[in-house]
């Protein structure tokens, strides 16, 4: 036990004497959650749109000017046919298109109701719904202004067509996902260099000559990184609630427990990489590329696992983030209790245990 404490002390010295690593570990996750959280939920400004004006009257032009004049939207092109609208979307030139029918002005003056069509790129569901709401407001405003004139009686009916993601899936869901991702990125990759660094610097030889047991070396390395990672976790959760306004409906103790187990698995994964990799660089690359990509793709963060081919679905079972992001989301947003997510708990717990066990086994006692 005394050996163990001595070794932890040494690890703590390493970390606090390397301010760069320490600040990466403590500050980067918070900054990333903030930046990405805001990037995804922030106000919409200057969204490019195209207009297909088939009416070509003062009234229709005014409506387009009204939309363009707003800070939310910027007209990038006036197009002349439906196929051009399609093309503009496909080329990513615009996120929204307004189609004004030939009888717009007429309808406005002489009929009760007139339709305009609005096409919205909803591949980012948050943005899509915001765009929709803003446009509705602008149209309503336009109508109000028209009401000042005696003849204008027709109500404008905006017919919305959502492109790419008609169900508008996932609104809050991004923030718990981000936390899971960032924790994995920072904690795993920082932990992963810890053993590899000793191999590279040559200090590993001295440790191996000593009677220190590998299990002690591995566990002692895990402790300080686990503590830092937990600090990260708590600050990310606080941020997401108080700054990004993600509701916390479920039990806080449960959230912390889940976070602890997930963090443990992230650190254990880092240790495993570290035990196998020969150099720090190798460890970093493995952690970065080998972990991050599958975690983004297979964690239900962006791409729904349910609609993946069976093979990928099976593969997603071994991604720890998959077992964290969904339950965290469920506790935070839906407020579910342990009974609904105990399976994930069990899986994450056994993953951590297995990873720790394997990294101790893989840690070579001899060179």
């Amino acid at each position: 036990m005394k050996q163990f404490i001595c070794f932890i002390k040494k690890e703590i010295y390493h970390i606090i004497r390397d301010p760069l690593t320490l600040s990466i570990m403590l500050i980067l996750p918070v900054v990333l959650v903030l930046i990405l959280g805001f990037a995804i939920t922030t106000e919409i400004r200057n969204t490019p749109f195209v207009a297909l004006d088939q009416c070509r009257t003062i009234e229709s032009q005014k409506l387009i000017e009204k939309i363009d004049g707003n800070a939310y939207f910027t007209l990038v092109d006036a197009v002349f046919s439906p196929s051009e609208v399609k093309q503009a979307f496909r080329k990513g030139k615009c996120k929204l298109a307004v189609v004004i029918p030939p009888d717009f002005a007429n309808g406005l003056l002489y009929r009760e109701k007139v339709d305009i069509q609005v096409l919205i790129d909803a591949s980012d569901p948050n943005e899509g719904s915001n765009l929709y709401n803003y446009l509705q407001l602008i149209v309503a405003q336009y109508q109000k202004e028209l009401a000042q004139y005696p003849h204008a009686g027709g109500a404008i009916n905006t017919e919305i067509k959502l492109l790419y993601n008609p169900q508008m899936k996932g609104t809050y869901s991004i923030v718990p996902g981000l936390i899971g991702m960032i924790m994995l990125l920072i904690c795993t990759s920082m932990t992963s260099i810890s053993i590899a660094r000793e191999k590279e610097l040559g200090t590993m030889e001295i440790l191996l000559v000593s009677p220190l047991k590998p299990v002690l070396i591995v566990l002692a390395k895990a402790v300080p990184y686990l503590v830092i990672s937990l600090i990260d976790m708590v600050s990310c959760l606080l941020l997401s609630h108080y700054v990004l306004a993600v509701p916390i409906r479920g039990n806080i103790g449960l959230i912390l427990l889940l976070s602890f187990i997930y963090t443990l698995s992230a650190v254990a994964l880092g240790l495993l990489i570290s035990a196998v990799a020969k150099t720090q660089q190798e460890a970093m690359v493995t952690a970065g590329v080998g972990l991050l990509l599958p975690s983004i793709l297979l964690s239900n963060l962006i791409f729904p696992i349910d609609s993946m081919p069976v093979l990928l679905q099976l593969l997603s079972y071994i991604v720890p983030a998959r077992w964290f992001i969904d339950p965290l989301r469920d506790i935070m947003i839906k407020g579910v209790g342990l009974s609904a997510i105990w399976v994930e708990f069990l899986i994450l717990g056994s993953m951590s245990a297995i990873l720790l066990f394997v990294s101790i086994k893989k840690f070579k006692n001899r060179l």
Partner: protein
Amino acid sequence: MEKTVIQVNDLTKRFGAFTAVDRLSFEVKESEIFGFLGANGTGKTTAIKMLCGLLSPTSGTGRVAGYDLFKQADKVKMNIGYMSQKFSLYEDLKVTENMELFGGIYGMRPKAIRAKTREVIDDLELEDEKHRLVGSLPLGVKQKVSFAVSTFHSPKIVFLDEPTSGVDPISRRIFWEMIYKASSKGMTIFVTTHYMDEAEYCNRISIMVDGKIKALDSPKILKENFGVDSMDTVFQLLARPSNYSKK
């Protein structure tokens, strides 16, 4: 008769088809300074790593500090110190913190660690440097600290793998004074070197060529046997026999 602290028989290490160390057999007595010479790549470091338990031998038997190299590796480790070719203390730890760490790893009590630290700092005149980070020390001092740390737990045997390479002559001299002092206190020193003047300081030396021991005796007897007046010539004769047979 003096106690034997290292005894190896036919110790062999193969890496695939390459035999790095070929049937090594020798004995080292207690408190002896045993020099281990050989050109680069002749298997010195491999041999040392096997004796320290860093590499497992392919075949042969060996006892170090009274324990079997194969069956009692943990006990061997408790009783030896090792200073590697590459400088390998923690550069981001202070001198005293390195000592505290390794004392702790070898299971020394905090009180014993403090007393020993005091003693070593006085002995090696490290008073001014003791609170500096090891990384900021000059190489000569680093090697001194490295020796102090590798012998901190008072091992029976200390293995020094080219401890003075790259070190200036004065620091080397001081280093050898340290070695003598440790040996006079009963510690066995197993040292590899490329400096022939250092070879002369050893009680006995062995010269390795191509994974085998070609000569093993005291420097004086070796020189007599070969009929030359310096260890350098003995070494050249053994390591590059063709050059000399032509003359």
